C-alpha cells in the first residue's frame, strides 16, 4: 500500500553525518564570551544604580567587585565562571519558583474556588463528570468550522 516515489534526488546529504559537522539549533546557545560580557554589563549597571540612585556605596562596591570577578574568571578561569553561572542559575530557579508559588497559590484559590462555587450553584458540569448512564450515547455532534478563516485562529 505504498508507492515508490523517492525525494532524495540530490547527490549530497542535506544533513551532516556527525554533530561536529552540524549546526544543531539550540534556542539559547550563546558563546562563553558573550555570556560573560552580558553578565558583567548587567551587574555593572545594577551597581551603578545602587551607587547613584540608592546611595549605598558598600553594596554598590560589592556588586562592582563581583562584576569584575565575573569578567576576569570568564576570560581567564572559565571553569570557575561556569560554576558560578550554574549556582546563579539554580539560585534564579529557586527564587522564580518561590515567587511563582507566592503569586499563583492565592490566584488559584481566589479565581477558581469562587468559579467552582458559581458552577455548583448554577448546576453546570462543563466536564460532564456526573455519570449519565441513561443517555443513549456520549458522542457529541461536531460543530464544523464556520468558514475557512476559522483555521487562521488559535481558538
Amino acid at each position, binding site marked *: *500500500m*505504498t*508507492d*515508490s*516515489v*523517492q*525525494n*532524495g534526488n540530490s*547527490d*549530497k*546529504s*542535506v*544533513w*551532516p*553525518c*556527525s*554533530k561536529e*559537522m552540524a549546526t*544543531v*539549533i*539550540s*534556542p539559547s546557545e550563546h558563546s562563553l564570551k558573550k555570556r560573560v560580557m552580558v553578565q558583567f554589563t548587567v551587574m555593572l549597571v545594577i551597581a551603578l544604580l545602587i551607587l547613584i540612585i540608592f546611595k549605598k556605596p558598600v553594596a554598590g562596591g560589592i556588586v562592582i567587585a563581583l562584576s569584575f570577578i565575573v569578567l576576569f574568571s570568564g576570560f581567564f578561569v572559565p571553569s570557575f565562571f561556569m560554576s558560578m553561572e550554574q549556582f546563579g542559575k539554580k539560585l534564579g530557579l529557586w527564587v522564580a519558583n518561590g515567587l*511563582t*508559588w507566592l503569586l*499563583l*497559590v492565592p490566584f*488559584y*484559590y481566589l479565581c*477558581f*474556588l469562587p*468559579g*467552582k462555587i458559581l*458552577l455548583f450553584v448554577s448546576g453546570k*458540569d*462543563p*466536564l*460532564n*463528570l456526573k*455519570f*449519565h*448512564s441513561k*443517555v*443513549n*450515547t*456520549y*458522542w*457529541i*455532534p*461536531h460543530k*464544523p468550522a464556520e468558514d*475557512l478563516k476559522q*483555521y*487562521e*485562529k*488559535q*481558538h
Partner: protein
Amino acid sequence: MNILGISAFYHDSAASLVRDGKIIAAAQEERFTRKKHDQNFPFNAIKYCLAEGGIGKGELDAVAFYDKPITKFARILETYFSVAPRGLNSFMMALPVWLKQKLWIPMEIEIAMEKCGLNMPKLYFPEHHESHAASAFYPSPFQNAAILTIDGVGEWATSTLGRGNGNKLEIISDLRFPHSLGLLYSAFTYFTGFRVNSGEYKLMGLAPYGEPKYVDLIYNNLLDVKEDGSLALNMKYFGYLDGLTMTNERFAKLFGGPARKAESEITQREMDIARSIQVVTEEIVLKMAKHLHAITGEKNLCLAGGVALNCVANGRLLREGPFKNIWIQPAAGDAGGALGAAMLVWYLIKNGERHTDGIHDSMQGAYLGPEFKDDDIEAYLKNKGYPAKKLIGNEWAKTIAQIIDEQNVIGLLHGRMEFGPRALGNRSIIGDARSTKMQSIMNLKIKYRESFRPFAPSCLVEKKSDFFELDTPSPYMLLVAPVKKERCLGRENTSTVPIRERINQARSDVPAITHVDYSARIQTVDRSTNPRYYDLIKAFEEKTGKGIIINTSFNVRGEPIVCTPEDAYRCFMRTEMDYLVLGSFLLSKKDQPPWLEKTNWRQDYVLD
C-alpha cells in the same frame, strides 16, 4: 505551494514539509536532539525539512500548527474551575509553562523562520483531531473513507468519527475530555509501572502473559460504554484532572494494591491487568468502528491518534471489524499531527487536487527523513579512522544475509530515516528470526530492555501468508496477526509457567518473532518501497529458505532511534552488536578501535 507542518509542546514534536500535496520530508525532533519524545519546539526538524525541500527565502507559503493552543488552554482552565479547591499542584506545574511558552506559538514560529533565513508566512491552526484525521485520510489510498481518531486529548476532543471524500474532510462527532480511551489506557500504563505517553506499547506487549481477570471489574467500576463505542469514565478513580498521577487511591484499592513502582518486578497482577485493559480497549475500538461503519456506510477506514498504534487492536479490527480495507497512519501519534496539519491546509483550505488509486498510499513507505549518501559516509569514516568495507551491487545483500545466518546481530542504517515510532528497515537492528536465543540476546545485550518484550519480523510481502494468518500487506508494522498454526509448537496453556521460562520457550520455527500468544507484529517488505531491504531479506531467503528476519529499532532503551551515521556508530560500539552497516559500508566490531567513554553513557537516557 510549500506548507510546513509543526507539532510541538506535548510529546513527540515534529515537522513536515508538503509541496502541492506531495510529502517532501517529515521528521521527529527527538532524532536530532537525541532526547526521547522531545516536546520542545522542533527547530532541527524544521531546519531539516526546509533543507530537504530546498526552501529559500520567500518560498515557504504557509505554516500549519497541529492544534488550537488557546482552546486547549481554555479547557485546562475550565478543568480547574471544575476541580477546585483540589488541583493546585497540577495548576502550579501547568500554568508557568503555558504562560512562558505554549501561548506564544506564532512567536516561536517567527523565531524559527528567522533562524532559517525565511520570511514569516501565513499561519494556520487546525484542531488537534482534525490534524490526526487529515494525517489518516489524505495520504491514504482511498478516495472515500470513514475516519476514526482516538488519542489522549487534543483541545476538547479525545476521539472523533469522521468522513473523507476526495479533498474534503468532515468530523461528524466527538467524545470530549476527560472521557478518553487513550487516557484510560495511559492510566493503566501508569498503574502497571510504565511511563505514560511512552510505555503504552510495553503494556500491550505484556498483555498476552496475563488472563483477562479484571475485565468485569473495569466495566463495572471505571467506565460506562455504550453500544456505539462512546464512553464516559468514572472520574472518581482517576487522578489526572486534579493531581499529578493518572490514577488515585480509590483505583489502587479497586485493583488490590498500589501502582507498581517503575523497574520493580512485574507480577502476575500486572500481566492480568495488562490483558484486561487490552481486551476492554479492543472491544471499545471494535464498537466505535461498527458504529462509524453504520453511520457512514463506507467500506474503507482510516485510523490515527495514539491508540491507532495499538497494533493488537488494529489486527482484531481487520479480522473482526466491519470495514473491508483499513489504512493506519504510520506516525499515528502527535508527530503525525505535523503532517496532517500541513496536508489539511493544502487539500481543505487551498482546495488542492487529490489523486488516489485505491492501492498505493502517498507515505513513500514512511521513509521521509534524512538520508546519508555513500560519499558523505565514506568521508565521515575516513575522518574518524573507522575501518570499513564497501559492498558493491548484489554483494551488499548477500554479505549481510550471510552474516545474519551466522547468528550475528547487525545495526542497519541506509536510505531515508523513517517517520513515526517504528523502524522499518532503514534504522533497524536485524537478526535471525529462526534463532531460539535471539530474543534474549537482543533484549539483554543489545537493547538493554525488559526481557518479556517481543521482537517484530520483517518478511517479504509475497511470503506473508506462508508465515502468518494475514492476507493484507502491513508495511508499517501496525498489524498483529497469528503465526501460521502449522509453524507453531506446543500451544498448550502455559500460564502456570514462570514468565522468564515462558520467554525462552520455542513457540514456532521462527521463535525469535513469535510472541507468547503465538502472534507477531508484522512488517511486510515490498520491493517497490524499499528495494535494498527487500533484496537483503530475499538473499536471506535464498540462503536459508525463510524470507523473514528480526527487525527492531536501532537504539537502546530510552534512546531515540538513531538518525545519523555518528548516532549509529555510537550505539553500535556501546552495545554487543557484531556488525554495522552504514549505507554501502560494512563495519565489523572486531576491527574497530577501542571505544572509550569517560562517563556512564546510560545516564544520558531516561528509561522509558
